[in-house]
């Protein structure tokens, strides 16, 4: 009796079954994920609309925080406002960082209090630190960030004046400008300079903390005898980056720990609104600087003589 069993059917069947199972399961899984994503996206846009509604509401009130309920839409938002810098009295060791500026954009930082009807004096120290530039810096010399610093102050005869400082970290002779090197101790206070001179990190009002900037200059002699016309109060400082094609951070830091006299006044407000719908949350953050004097008025304010409008 011969027991001749030959066959490959089972093997073939197994292979076919595995392949069919794999294809089928992946199709099912794709479509399930698709639907789940689509419904999460819908929830997400409801949450975003709620977050926008929260910002609209808090812009209209003076309350520190606001809750918006859009019950028909199954969405709600919680919004709050905060000042920059957070508390002038205690934040003088923090550098006030302005949102990154590109070439020819101007960063305005108030030194007197813009929310006071008489623009009352705030910062009154003889030195002030200015930070700018990000690390690493491009090695091609087209991109070394130079800075124009315009300090606006009221002199002892109550006239608005401005004082300009120019600093350029490019090697001297590279660019045909007469800008000061940041480590020049005649114009700036000692301790000024650019990395890699071992600049220590500085705590700023933005995250992450302990930020390192490319350059630092310490303006000095900001006091009565040294400024042209004498000094009644410091008002505003304008920072403008030159030559660089990137957007770079800039910051100002007051020197000393003497309360209001060493601190910077409130500059701007940040509104943050978190909208939620179901399990999704969307956050909107708005930076609003509402007291800004446009830079082109400088030509009118600081003119030497009378300004005449010539009719055409």
């Amino acid at each position: 009796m011969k027991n001749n069993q030959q066959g490959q059917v089972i093997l073939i069947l197994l292979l076919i079954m595995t392949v069919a199972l794999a294809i089928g399961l992946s199709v099912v899984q794709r479509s399930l994920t698709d639907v789940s994503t689509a419904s999460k996206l819908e929830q997400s846009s409801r949450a975003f609309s709620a977050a926008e509604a929260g910002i609209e509401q808090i812009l209209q009130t003076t309350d520190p925080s606001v809750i918006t309920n859009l019950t028909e839409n199954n969405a709600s938002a919680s919004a709050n406002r905060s000042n920059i810098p957070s508390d002038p009295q205690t934040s003088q060791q923090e550098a006030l960082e302005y949102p990154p500026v590109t070439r020819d954009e101007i960063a305005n930082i108030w030194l007197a209090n813009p929310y006071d009807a008489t623009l009352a004096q705030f910062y009154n120290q003889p030195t002030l630190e200015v930070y700018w530039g990000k690390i690493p810096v491009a090695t091609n010399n087209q991109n070394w960030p130079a800075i124009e610093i315009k300090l606006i102050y009221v002199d002892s005869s109550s006239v608005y004046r401005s004082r300009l400082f120019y600093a350029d970290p490019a090697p001297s002779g590279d660019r045909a400008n007469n800008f000061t090197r940041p480590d020049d101790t005649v114009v700036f206070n000692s301790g000024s300079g650019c990395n890699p001179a071992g600049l220590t990190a500085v705590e700023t009002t933005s995250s992450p903390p302990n930020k390192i900037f490319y350059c630092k200059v310490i303006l000095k002699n900001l006091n009565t005898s040294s400024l042209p016309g004498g000094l009644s109060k410091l008002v505003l400082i304008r920072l403008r980056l030159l030559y660089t094609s990137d957007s770079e951070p800039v910051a100002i830091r007051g020197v000393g720990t003497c309360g209001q006299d060493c601190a910077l006044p409130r500059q701007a407000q940040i509104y943050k609104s978190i909208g939620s719908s179901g399990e999704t949350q969307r956050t909107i953050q708005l930076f609003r600087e509402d007291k800004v004097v446009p830079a082109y008025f400088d030509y009118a304010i600081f003119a030497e003589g009378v300004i005449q409008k010539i009719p055409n």
Partner: protein
Amino acid sequence: MKKYLNQKGFSLLEVLMTLSTVSIIIFLLAGIPNSINLITKSKHLDLVREISSRQIEELRIASYNNLANGETSIVDHRIKLLPSGAAQLLIEECPISVCTNNEEAKKIKITVTWTENGKPQNSIIETIISSGGL
């Protein structure tokens, strides 16, 4: 005596394996129409989201004084990609239940309706627009 045992046929194991393979394949094939439905449904949800978002953006860009209260029909070429699709825009003064400080603002409600396999669906997005706001 010669016993000629010649059984041609299929063994039990073969039959069982074949049956189970064929039934798995049938189940998977039966799932395909369902998958196609789900994919279409997610495509529709995407369209609805796009239509609503664009409408809200356009309202925010427009001047606040031009927002007239009332219900209007939304015009968007994507609406006809939805089966029996229609979209309504409702603008009203922000009710006290939402704008608790009685701010000068308008509540916007966008309702998109369409049918999925004959079943009516709708999606609503609400937000607030105020003068001098976003």
